[in-house]
């Protein structure tokens, strides 16, 4: 299924060639934004944390875009347009990988 998606979407330039590597990279960057988000909730004026949050957010959205182009949608409900047939049901669920 993942292989099919790769063909459908064509070549994407990236160093993260396989699914596991890219997923782990997204998990790392998203974790940084989760933790900083909680910190900023109780320290809304902390400029250093805010800068870090913004920096990680930019990287994370690049990684998520790469994931979407290579492997299909990462989130539901309008986060990205779908190839035909409907992609959401094709990609693996978290407990399957």
């Amino acid at each position: 299924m993942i292989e099919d998606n790769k063909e459908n979407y064509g070549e994407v330039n990236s160093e993260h060639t396989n699914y596991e590597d890219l997923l782990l990279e997204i998990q790392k960057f998203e974790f940084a934004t989760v933790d900083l988000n909680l910190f900023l909730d109780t320290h809304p004026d902390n400029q250093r944390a805010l800068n870090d949050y913004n920096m990680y957010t930019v990287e994370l959205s690049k990684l998520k875009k790469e994931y979407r182009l290579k492997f299909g949608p990462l989130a539901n409900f309008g986060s990205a347009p779908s190839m035909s047939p409907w992609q959401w049901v094709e990609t693996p669920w978290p407990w399957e990988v």
Partner: protein
Amino acid sequence: MWIYEKKLEYPVKVDTTNPALAQMIMEQFGGADGELAAGIRYLTQRFVMPTKESIAILTDVGTEELAHWEIIETLVWKLVKDAPLDKIKGTPFEAHFAAHGRSPFPGNAGGHPWTAAYIQSKDDPITNLYEDMAAEQKARSTYEYLIQLSDDPGVTDTLKFLREREVVHFQRFGEALMGVQEYKDTKKYL
């Protein structure tokens, strides 16, 4: 509204099949101090919070707890999904199997189904935040017991991540409590 991401917050690598360990980890799936209780508790309490910071922290920690609930469910599932019957019979997972097969079910290690009686929500932000801080400490203790019981390196790694998050949540709730107390003090003397 919530959006679902087709990924776990932290990787779950399970190296063994171990129904007995799965049954113990269910304490964090459907137990009093588990991830479901945590998520429901915070997402319920946030409506009566008086400061924008405390509403935000309950919303965001509550959301993270649901992601932890999914991690726990994945741990339990991976520990039992390939278990043959002779590895289930005679283990603490046998009673679960009798009621649910290998399907996840939100109950605690002893098999009691999850109940909202595990949580509290009062129209008193100080009371709620003290409960939340206690809940994070209780969850941390439980993770420490589970880490002692685990002999699967992948499972232990994920349990250690979840334990650390309880420490961070406790810290953030303490800060939110200070903010709420300051807010109440300024209001009193205006």
